[in-house]
């Protein structure tokens, strides 16, 4: 296939994949009265900016909280799972296999079950309705995954590298910190990215554990447009559009960073 042909095909595929996103944007400009128009308006002509006006006035604090929660989750997840991954991959703890299995199982527990249990713990710890509490809860989605990825990656690090560090007199921790961790940059980025995305789009934990108070994430911000008997769909969709901007930026940044790491592996066509 010619490269241009492939690009053409790629553009078409992407267009199909992103059609629902286009539709969301379309709805974000639609007037309340045209929401269920039959046939639907395919383009937001003669639309309204009402949705965006509402969002810009009300949603900024939620975006900030979401960003904070996302970053906090990333830090906590990496801090917990990188050492564990190293241990499982290289230090051969007795019972490590069982622990890996438990971690895998942990991943399978539906969030809603976790959330109910968390409520009681949080009440006692006093972290209900706080960004910190949400970081803790959101990290439960990502930590088992993180350990899995770190273990996988670190077991691929040549043992000679580690041995060399130890011959130089580095202790276990120092080896981890100044040799293993820097080499594992790709794994760190992967885990961070997943952790961030999961935290960013979490709703179950947010609604159970962070439903009140001033530190609410954007997924709950959206819920404010779903009133008792009334739903402002253009504002909901506008929030989603605006909410995906910072996440997209981050994604592009991470992509660049990672792409650099990957080309080191010299991929040829």
């Amino acid at each position, binding site marked *: 296939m010619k490269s241009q042909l492939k690009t053409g095909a790629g553009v078409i595929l992407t267009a199909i994949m992103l059609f629902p996103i286009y539709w969301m944007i379309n709805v974000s400009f639609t007037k309340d009265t045209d929401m*269920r128009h039959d046939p639907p308006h395919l383009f937001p002509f003669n639309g309204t900016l009402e949705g965006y006006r509402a969002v810009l006035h009300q949603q900024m604090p939620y975006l900030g909280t979401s960003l904070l929660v996302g970053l906090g989750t990333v830090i906590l997840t990496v801090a917990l799972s990188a050492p564990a991954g190293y241990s499982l991959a290289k230090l051969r703890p007795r019972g490590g296999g069982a622990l890996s299995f438990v971690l895998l199982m942990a991943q399978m527990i539906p969030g809603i079950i976790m959330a109910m249990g968390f409520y009681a713990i949080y009440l006692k710890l006093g972290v209900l309705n706080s960004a910190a509490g949400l970081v803790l809860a959101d990290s439960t989605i990502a930590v088992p995954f993180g350990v899995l990825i770190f273990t996988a990656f670190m077991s691929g690090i040549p043992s000679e590298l580690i041995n060399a560090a130890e011959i130089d007199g580095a202790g276990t921790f120092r080896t981890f910190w100044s040799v293993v961790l820097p080499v594992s940059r790709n794994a760190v980025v992967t885990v961070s990215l997943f952790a961030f995305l999961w935290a960013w789009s979490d709703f179950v934990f947010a609604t159970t554990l962070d439903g009140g108070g001033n530190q609410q994430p954007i997924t709950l911000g959206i819920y404010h447009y779903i009133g008792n*008997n009334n739903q402002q769909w253009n504002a909901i969709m506008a929030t989603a559009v605006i909410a995906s901007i910072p996440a997209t930026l981050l994604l592009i940044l991470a992509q660049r960073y990672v792409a650099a790491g990957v080309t080191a592996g010299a991929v040829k066509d």
Partner: protein
Amino acid sequence: MTLSSRRGLRAIAALSVAVCLTAACSNDNSSSGDGSTAAGGGTYNIWDPYPQFDDSSDWVKLLAKCGTDAGVTVKRTGYDTTDLTNKALLAAQQGNSPDVLIVDNPVVSTLAEGGVLTTTDDTKVDTSAVEPNLLAAGQQDGKTYGIPIGANTLALYYNKKVLDAAKVDPATVKDWTSLTAALEKVKAAGKKGITFSAIGTEEGSFQFLPWFWGSGAQLTQLDSPQAVSALALWTDWLKKGYAPNSVLNNTQTTSWQEFATGDYAFSENGTWQLANAKKAGFEYGIIPIPSQAGGTAPAPTGGEFVTAPVQTDTKRYATTAKLVACLSSADNALTTDTTLSYVAATSAVQDKQVAANPDLKVWVEAVKAAKGRTSDNLGTKYPKISEPLWGAFQAALSGGKSPADALKAAQTTAASATK
């Protein structure tokens, strides 16, 4: 070397726990509810199902003012209404209930059953002015567990232009036969008939009940011939194309959006859509939902109750009672009900509302004819009946079962659940 490495390790271990601990310390009092602990404290917690109102809204200002009048600070939290029940139960289980809880009326009996709520005797809240049919939703075994902040109910909105084009006079719609005849004419004129919400949740049951009750059926006997005729009415509308297939998945909001396109003749919807109706850009009118034989069908009451959850520290009730009284006082109720587009719960305030806005007259009458879902001392039996009921109309409307079969199955389920 080893020393430094161990120190570093400890740092990592510390970091992982510290994130939560420091947060716990810094966030403790300000954000978590402290209903049971801060006895003499000046902070009273109020939970409401109106997350759409932020701090600058009249509603939140009213809460703050009531707090100030009672000499305390009010901490208000707005939750999504479907969440509020669980949240209230969880909080009660952990001894962390708010002082004042505003909940949807059919939930009151569930919470009362769970021992979460105080009775109005405990808190000495005066409910004498409230219309009895509205108060009934909050009563169980002779005790009253709250006071309605306002009420809403269902009626039929119609689009004048569509009806004119189909040569239908809304005044002639008096019973089911004339309504169906009107829909037929509308369809013949190339427009769409009626939209409602038949979603498989409580919202769908809420919308079905006026037809169910309007046939003379009782919730204690879901498969009576009357009930079957009510469901057959809906099913036939769908079959003949008088109502869109999307009703199966419609919430009351989506069903309203369909009506707002201007293509539909009728929409079964509530008081709260009045403000939107004015924005819709076409002339509309409102008629009560007809019963099968004619006359106004009893519609279910909607709207929230102000309740006072049980506290370990009973000294708090005195102040709580002041807050409740303030929220339900005539002047404040007028403001609140206007904001929420509700009908007031006392006839004195209802009269004021009609004086200020004659459009509300039909709604006030509809509310007077309305009936609580948990009334007739059904209480917590109601949810066990409502769920099979919505299962039945979903099955019949989606073509899975005939109305009679669907209701028979529902009755079996409901009977065994309420035994």
